[in-house]
Structures are given as structure tokens and as C-alpha cells.
């Protein structure tokens, strides 16, 4: 699910992103705009806090009884004429989807925006079998045309501005008017002409799933453009891939999320296109419906009592939009389908700290993510929990990175010093003495070793001659 194995650790990747002034400008503008709008529409809802609590509690119930709800969903979908497939991991999920497409003898499919199939790299797997998957979400199309990676959960092309998108359309799409401007309406119209042809000529559609109602077997896709609805209604065959945590128990529970999600994600009061379907219906929509239930690491997350809350996520991206780290580095630095604060916990939870060990540290623990999360995922708590696991892992494996073991020695030494008043007071005195080669003109401007990052832009005040406790003792 992650490129982290091939991807540099976050600090290095971030360094590259931070140097891109166009990216900084695009992202700063986009996140600040959506942040302000979200705050406005959330403030309109008097029972927002109760809604958040309901959203959290429902997910907690689903996760606690996931085995029961999954079976309930399976039988409801089957009863409504759909087929249900179970996939342990990405490979199995992709094979199931590929087999269904191949059985219909087609070599082209249309796709609505789906993070889960990004996670499983379905497009690449289909391409290996000679099947071309066309992305139909506008931003996802921009990513596909540019051979790029999504950098945001909801707005995958947030790192691109309209001038860059115009250039991409001019070079990659057929039948583009030579005088195409960077006016968003003209750009959307160009994409619409391209997509309309695909919708009318493709027999198999693939979608993700936002919510699946266990009680009724109803599956739902929540989107803004209507292209998702085209994908889920026009083709003869529809395949929907969902993570096993996307269940709500009953139809009425959708009410909670249909209030929480649009206000948190696009800062809209109501979602523009909410498609809901139950199995297949005679003479209406696809004649064949397949639901693929994907695990791909989720049951491991479920087993982690602190980390489990990450499965509450409804992919709204509010945490990305308020994150001071994401705002500056963008999504690519995370090297994962899931960037930002939620990605910093979900990626290592799903795929292990081995590949994503630097992500839990990619946060100042400012807490802005937790404050806006519509399902109350305590992201800072899970980040610290994962840091603890990373430290334990390195202790067991003998060196996650050479630097970390040096860090562990320092942390242990400091813990011993803090555990003993005499050692602590001695350390205060020796700090005062040891710093003298570093102090120039009343400040420290260069620090050695791993602390050099501090002094690259910040001075450090020297340790003063008298500690507070010295002053206190002299006074009384």
C-alpha cells in the first residue's frame, strides 16, 4: 500500500518539498481557504459536538462487532442480487477485480475516485493484465495524465494550480481547443468532453465505497462532480472495492455521517452527489454488481487497542487541511496513499513501522487534527503510541537507524539524571561549564552533531549562571 520502502524518510522528502515555492504557494492558499470555510459551516451546527460523539461511537460499535456486521452485510448484498468477494490483501483484491473484468472480455474500465484502489495499486495490476483503467474524477484524471501521485485525500491534485493543469490538458488530451485558457470552467468543460465519451463506451465500472449499510446491504459513494454517479450507473457491470471498516450498522446511521462528512471535507452543508444502491435492480443501472471486501492490514489495526481508532476515519481530510506540517510539505513527502496527520498514523498501522518508521515523528503534536476530526480520532495520542512502538522495535532489533540508538542512550542517561536530584543539580552545573566553547557574544550560534538542525536558523541562549533553585535557596 505504500511506496515508503522505495520512498525516502519524511525529513528528507520534506526537505525537497519545502524548497518548492510554487508548491508552498498552491498548498498554503488551498488549505487556508478550505480551513476557514470548514470552520464557518461547522459553527452553524449547534449539535456538532454531539454529532462528532455519535460518529465516533457508531464506528466504535462497528469495530467491536465487525465480524457480525460483515456477515450481515454479505448476506444482505447477496439477497439483493449482488456478489460478495473477500480479499485478504491488495494482491488478492486486485486479482479478484482483474478476473471479473477479464471474464467480460473488456480491456477498458472507468473508475470513480477511490483511495482503497490507490492503496492496492489496482490500476497498475490491471495494466499488467492489459486492462486500461480510466480515472474519471477530475483531479484524479489530472494525476493520471501527469503520471503523478495524489497529494491529498480529497483533492488529489491540490499541489497543481490551474495554469499547470491547462498545460497538462494541452499536451495529453485529444481534441483540445488551441485557445484553451486556464479558466476553471473551460478546463472542466474540456475534461467533461473527454470523460463523456468514456462513460458511454465502457462496459465495466469500478468504484470505492464510502459507507455500506450492514442491515440493508446498501452501498454508497459520496462525491462532488457526478462522475462517480456516471461510473456506478452507466456501465453494465459495477465492481466496488471497500475496506472492511467502512460499515455502518443501520440505514439511519447514515444521517450522522451525511452531516459530518460534507462540512468537514468540502465545507459544504450538503453533499452534491450521494449515490446509494442495493444489489441490482431490473432495468435500472448495472446488471451485475460485485462488492470486494478488503482487509489489507485492517484486522492488524483492529488488534491494536490504541491504534484501532484510526479505522474510524471517513476520509474527510479535515486533518490535512489544518495540519501545519502538511500545509508546508504537501502530501508527497509522506510517500503514502494516505498523507497528512491521518496518513502519519494509518500508513504505519496498515503496513508496519518498518516501511513508514519516520511518519509518526512527522508532527509537532500541535493537536489541530484532533480538534477538527469529525469522528474524534485522537491522532496525537496514536502518534505517540506509534513512536513508543518504534522505540521498542529499535531496541529489540538493535538499531532502527544508527541515530536512534544514540538517541536512546541519551534518553536513558537523561532519565537517570532526572530520577536523582543530586545528579540533576550536578548536570545543571556541568552544563554551565561545558557550554563555554559554544558561547559567543552571549549566545550560542552553532551546535554540534544531531543538534545542528536547531542552530541552522535559531540561536540558543546560554545556560544562565544561576538556576532557579539556586536563587530559591539563596533567598530563603
Amino acid at each position, binding site marked *: 500500500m505504500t511506496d515508503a520502502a522505495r520512498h525516502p524518510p*519524511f525529513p528528507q522528502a520534506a526537505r525537497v518539498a519545502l524548497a518548492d515555492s510554487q508548491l508552498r504557494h498552491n498548498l498554503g492558499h488551498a488549505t487556508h481557504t478550505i480551513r476557514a470555510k470548514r470552520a464557518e459551516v461547522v459553527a452553524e451546527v449547534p449539535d456538532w459536538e454531539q454529532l462528532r460523539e455519535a460518529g465516533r461511537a457508531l464506528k466504535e460499535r462497528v469495530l467491536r462487532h465487525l465480524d457480525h456486521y460483515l456477515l450481515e452485510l454479505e448476506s444482505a448484498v447477496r439477497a439483493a442480487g449482488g456478489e460478495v468477494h473477500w480479499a485478504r490483501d491488495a494482491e488478492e483484491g486486485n486479482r479478484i477485480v482483474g478476473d471479473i473484468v477479464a471474464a467480460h472480455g473488456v480491456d477498458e474500465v472507468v473508475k470513480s475516485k477511490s483511495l482503497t484502489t490507490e492503496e492496492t495499486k489496482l490500476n497498475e495490476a490491471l495494466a499488467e493484465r492489459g486492462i486500461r483503467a480510466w480515472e474519471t474524477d477530475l483531479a484524479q484524471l489530472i494525476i493520471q495524465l501527469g503520471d503523478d501521485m495524489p497529494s491529498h485525500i480529497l483533492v488529489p491534485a491540490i499541489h497543481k494550480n490551474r495554469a499547470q493543469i491547462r498545460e497538462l490538458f494541452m499536451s495529453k488530451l485529444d481534441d483540445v481547443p488551441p485557445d484553451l485558457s486556464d479558466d476553471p470552467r473551460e478546463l472542466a468543460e474540456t475534461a467533461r468532453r473527454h470523460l463523456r465519451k468514456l462513460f458511454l463506451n465502457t462496459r465495466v465500472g469500478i468504484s470505492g465505497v464510502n459507507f455500506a449499510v450492514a442491515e440493508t446491504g446498501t452501498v454508497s459513494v459520496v462525491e462532488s462532480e457526478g462522475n462517480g454517479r456516471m461510473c456506478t450507473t452507466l456501465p453494465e457491470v459495477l465492481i466496488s472495492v471497500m475496506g472492511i471498516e467502512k460499515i455502518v450498522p443501520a440505514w439511519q446511521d447514515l444521517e450522522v455521517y451525511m452531516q459530518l462528512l460534507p462540512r468537514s471535507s468540502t465545507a459544504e452543508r450538503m453533499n452534491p452527489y450521494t449515490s446509494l444502491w442495493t444489489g441490482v435492480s431490473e432495468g435500472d443501472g448495472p446488471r451485475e454488481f460485485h462488492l470486494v471486501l478488503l482487509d489489507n492490514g485492517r484486522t492488524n489495526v483492529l488488534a491494536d487497542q490504541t491504534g484501532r481508532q484510526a479505522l474510524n476515519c471517513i476520509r474527510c481530510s479535515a486533518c490535512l487541511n489544518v495540519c501545519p506540517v502538511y500545509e508546508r510539505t504537501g502530501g508527497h513527502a509522506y510517500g503514502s496513499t494516505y498523507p497528512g496527520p491521518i496518513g502519519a498514523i494509518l500508513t504505519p498501522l496498515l503496513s508496519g513501522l518498518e516501511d513508514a518508521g519516520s511518519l509518526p515523528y512527522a*508532527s*509537532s503534536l500541535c493537536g489541530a487534527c484532533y*480538534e477538527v476530526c469529525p469522528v474524534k480520532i485522537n491522532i496525537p495520542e496514536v502518534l505517540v503510541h506509534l513512536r*513508543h512502538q518504534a522505540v521498542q522495535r529499535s531496541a529489540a532489533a538493535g538499531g532502527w537507524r544508527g541515530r536512534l540508538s544514540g538517541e536512546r542512550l541519551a*534518553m536513558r542517561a537523561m*532519565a537517570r539524571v*532526572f530520577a536523582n536530584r543530586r545528579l540533576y543539580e550536578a548536570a545543571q552545573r556541568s552544563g554551565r561549564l561545558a557550554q563555554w566553547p559554544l558561547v559567543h557574544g552571549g549566545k550560542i550560534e552553532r551546535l554540534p552533531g544531531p543538534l545542528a538542525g536547531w542552530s541552522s536558523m535559531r540561536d540558543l541562549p546560554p545556560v544562565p549562571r544561576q538556576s532557579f533553585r539556586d536563587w530559591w535557596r539563596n533567598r530563603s
Partner: protein
Amino acid sequence: MGNDQTVPVLSSAVPRRVSLFITCFNDTMFPQTGQAVVNLLERLGLRVDFPLEQTCCGQMHFNTGYAEETVELVRRFARVFGDSEVVVSPSASCVGMVRDHYPRVAELAGDRGLAAEVEALRPRVLELTELLIDRLGTEDVGAFFPHRVTYHPTCHSLRMLHAGDRPLRLLRAVRGIDLRELPEATQCCGFGGTFAIKNADTSIAMLSDKIRTILDTGAEVCASADNSCLMHIGGALSRQRAGVRTMHIAEILAQTEERR
């Protein structure tokens, strides 16, 4: 903001005597902040004691992933302050550590006795502005500070302690002060403890924007309720020779016309 399930119910009785938890960082690096807290609280009629056995709350260890190394420091804190009626500290993030994370450390240690001690202690540990506003019921502490000041509300005071506008209410009552509103005030300054070292580039990018908004206010002093964030902000202001200094809010509140 809705994440308040971990905030203990603070008692509202007016204390006569408070124990100062200075924090290892202030003790060693910013003694003038501790002196200001003592002077201020004594001026307001409180008796301040300072248990010399105190060292560090363990926040850096816990937040960096060294939970095992934190346990002994939590035990120590509970032992040193167990008998205190009220503990006050000039650090929002260290108070946040005690109130929000100590129960988790006790749980990880599997020590029910410690968990009970921590549970009893949590509601009695207050950040300075909480003590002044909520317990002493005062906004005007009689301070005089004729300077142009802007206030940076730290993340942990905002989102862990839910300090709200308490610090600003105290600053507004200071005589002679010219308080300038900080744009984008609730944005993190980029410190984040070991984050500033491990992700130095990202931390500096965040800091640059914070510095820009501080300079935009035209203030000569940037104040805050946490010296750790201020050391980070002040370090950049100093490097840039920006002519703006940083001060803990306690040092402003301690100044009077007589004591300048």
C-alpha cells in the same frame, strides 16, 4: 473543543498555599520566569513553596516514545507533589503532560497505586493563568508594562488545557501595555520538542511564518505561556537580529511600577 473528556474537573476553592513546579527547563534555562512567578504570587497574598526534590515531568521522554523511561519520573512527581494542595507551573505543555498523559503512563506501567495517585493529583495541577483566573478570580494583577506586546497562544495551552482567552484577559488588564493581535495566532510555531531536531527543515518553515506574523504586529515583545516555544521563536528572532524579544507572560505580570 470537544476533546475535553480528559480534562479533570478542577476544584474552585481559593488556595492559600501553592507548590511551584518550575519544570527542569525553566529551572535551568529561564530562572527569571520562576522568580517572576514567585514575586507575582506572593504579591497576590499566596504562600509559595518549592519542593527541591522536583526535577522533570517526563514530557520529552513520553512524546518521543520513551514511555518506560517516563515511569520513574511520573512516580517522582507524584511523590514530590502528593501532599500539595495546589501545584502551579509556568508551562502549559508540562501541565498538559501531567493532566493528559500521566494516567496513560501509569497504565503502561501496570501500576494501579500510581494510577490512583495520579488521578488524585491531576485536578490540583494548574497552569499559572488558570490559577490566576479560575482560582484566585483575578484578571487585574496590578501589573505595569509600558511596551508593545503580542501574545502567541501555544498549542498545548490552547488544545490540551483549553486555556482560551485567560492569558489575554490578564494581559489586557496590564497598565501601560500596547497589546497587538497576532495574525494566525493559533498556528503552531513549529517547536514540538524533538520535532524541532528530527524534522528541523519543516520546523523552520513553520517558524518562518510565525516570525513573519510576529513582525507584522510591530510588537517589541512576543509573550507566551511556555518558554520552550519561546526559546524556539526567540532563537530565530535573535538570529535575524529582528529587534524583538521574547518574554514569558509571568515576567510581564510580575512587573509593577515599583518593581521594574
